[in-house]
């Protein structure tokens, strides 16, 4: 600790002196000592992480480098802060979207888990009941119903999307594929076409064949929207695929299905799983198609959040959002592990 501080002073002593000078100037100009805190948060931290510049670097170069770090640090904070800031806010004891004085003073009374309980209670007939509480919660609580819907729709549509998408990706990555560019751009277009247009078209068509306002309609829509992600991830895995493995397997007398099951599938499995996860998360996050096609019966979590934000904005939404953030952290971890595994597998295969 002391050593690293010493190193900081030794390498960047002059820079720290300038920073201190600027801080004093800022305080003098604004006339409040509080300004120093904000100024140091923005300009001090990047300086701490700045690497030692070579001796020949001019003052201008050093300053440019430093400002570059300040800027990128701010952008990264801009990216991550909103996602993280909702977590402490969701433990607010008051029904506000803002930090209360009590929360800032770390007063334990100012924090509570009431909004997390509200996720369970909202819509229940009798949250205080001891008998039949579980079934009441499972069947009547709005958020629980939305969660069940979301997971059901997302699971089914991710499975279908992965199946269809993997088949298509296998075809697309064959060198003999005719009209590859055209078909690829068709298969990826659901990601590009504005959701409102897709949803409008589906709404008219699904209404005319009687599957609007049903689970089937929502699932079909979500399969459509999830497919591009499966195509992209599986094609990426297949791009490094060694076709001589397939020939070797056929040479040794395996038929097409055995080759797929024993040779291709294990190698592209990481890509398939991450494709499935992408499709799953797309469905879990999708709200426009649900707004157009689904009925109250098929309300999903994002649909519930959408009306929550529009109609009765309460910290319950923040609690749900925090849970979803934790879920995406877990998902990101799984994806990263899969990516590493895929790289290892491909690194091992010859060629």
């Amino acid at each position: 600790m002391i050593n690293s501080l010493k190193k900081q002073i030794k390498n960047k002593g002059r820079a720290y002196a300038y920073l201190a000078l600027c801080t004093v100037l800022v305080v003098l100009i604004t006339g409040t000592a509080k300004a120093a805190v904000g100024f140091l948060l923005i300009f001090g931290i990047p300086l701490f992480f700045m690497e030692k510049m070579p001796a020949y670097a001019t003052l201008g170069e050093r300053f440019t480098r430093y400002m570059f770090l300040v800027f990128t640090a701010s952008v990264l904070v801009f990216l991550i802060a909103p996602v993280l800031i909702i977590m402490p806010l969701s433990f607010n004891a008051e029904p506000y979207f803002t930090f209360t004085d009590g929360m800032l003073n770390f007063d334990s009374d100012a924090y509570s888990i009431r909004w997390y309980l509200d996720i369970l209670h909202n819509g229940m007939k009798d949250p205080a009941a001891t008998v039949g509480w579980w079934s009441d919660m499972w069947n009547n609580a709005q958020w629980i119903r939305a969660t069940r819907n979301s997971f059901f729709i997302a699971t089914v549509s991710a499975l279908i999307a992965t199946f269809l998408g993997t088949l298509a990706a296998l075809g697309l990555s064959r060198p003999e594929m005719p009209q590859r560019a055209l078909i690829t751009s068709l298969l990826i277009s659901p990601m590009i076409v504005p959701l409102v247009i897709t949803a409008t078209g589906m709404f008219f068509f699904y209404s005319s064949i009687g599957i609007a306002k049903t689970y089937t309609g929502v699932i079909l829509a979500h399969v459509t929207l999830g497919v591009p992600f499966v195509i992209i991830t599986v094609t990426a895995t297949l791009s490094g695929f060694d076709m001589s493995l397939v020939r070797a397997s056929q040479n040794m007398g395996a038929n097409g299905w055995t080759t797929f099951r024993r040779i291709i599938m294990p190698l592209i499995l990481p890509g398939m799983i991450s494709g499935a996860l992408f499709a799953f998360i797309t469905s879990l996050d999708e709200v426009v198609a649900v707004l157009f096609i689904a009925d109250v019966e098929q309300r999903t979590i994002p649909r519930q959040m959408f009306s929550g934000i529009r109609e009765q904005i309460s910290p319950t939404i923040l609690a749900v959002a925090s849970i979803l953030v934790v879920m995406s952290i877990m998902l990101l971890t799984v994806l990263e592990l899969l990516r590493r595994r895929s790289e290892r597998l491909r690194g091992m295969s010859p060629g």
Partner: protein
Amino acid sequence: MTTANPSIDQTDTLPLKQKLAKTTAIQRRRAFLLTLPLVLFLLISFVFPIGQMLFNSMHNDKVSGVVPKFAVAIQSWDGQGLPSEEIFEIFVKDLAIAKKVREVGRTAGNMATRINYEMPGSRSLFTKSARKVGKITEGPYKEALIKLDKKWANPQVWLTLQRASHDIGPSFYIAAMDMKYNEVGEIVQADELYQIYLNNFVKTMWLAALITFICVLLAYPVAYLLAILPLRQSNLLMIMVLLPFWTSLLVRTTAWIAILQTEGVINDLLVYFGVIGEDGRIQMIYNQTGTIIAMVHILLPFMVLPLYSVMKTIQPTYMRAALSMGSKPFNAYRRVYFPLTIPGLAAGTLLVFILAIGYYITPALVGGQDGLLISNLIAYHIQKSLNWSLGAALGTMLLVVVLIFYWVYNRLIGIDKLKFG
């Protein structure tokens, strides 16, 4: 060889070239068959519905469905003065039948709504006349109808009816382009007050361009930092880009509401640091500013990731070579590094622009009044005003713009190069 092994010549009558062609054809078919299930699925669940919507934007049978005989008869009218007595008679009789049958979607009310799009204020004329039309039992029908409501003596009503009798016509595109038919049936600019759609289109394009530009400004340095840092550190920082990318859209929008609202975190901080007074809190959400900030945040990863993947491949030795040959750092950057990043820049820019132009959820939640984009207008016409043909026409125009950019993207970069994480 052939004499030593005659069996080859006897069984394989086809030349090698043809055999190869046959095998390739089989393999091509096999590859295509693998994609076929998905292609069929998307054709049914995605392409066909959108095609049907395009058709809806041109097609509207609300007049010919209600007064079918009249819709045919009115075509013979030359548009001078009022239609003949004969046409009036057919109209009155058709209307009386429609009144009696009352088929869903084929009532005088439906027709009134359709005409009202082009002649605001004419709705009551139709509904009122339809109620009383049964009383007219004998001619002269022209006078009787005009006695019922003297607006029937206005040739413009009949001109509009004649136009709307065509099932297929461009009238909704004309409305979507902020134009209308004037009294004599020419296409003119709509009144200033009704010019919403083109302005909104321009606004959408302009906001999408602005958001893309801000994304470039913010993403370029970040991608550069990620590309030059050692892998361990850059992976750590990459999480800060990927986590928001994988967080639910609604979660991020909610977060921005919590941060930007007048009682929100930013305003609290500004008040705390004394930048603004307690009563000077800034309205940053439920307007255009809120839409821009939230959308930049949501679309920024789409810019960082392609830039990063391109910058990662640029050898640091290029810059060193330029510097060692005596170039000023800025010049070396401008003439060596920057041109190499253009593919990533193009990919990110096009992707962000395409996504921004069709955005719906974020503007709907944080856009307030002036932050609404064209998607919100389309959704309004589909869900609220129920003017489906106009919504479809606006949607088609948006789709064309997006498809042009998608085509450019495919041409320049190729959609299969897209990667996540």
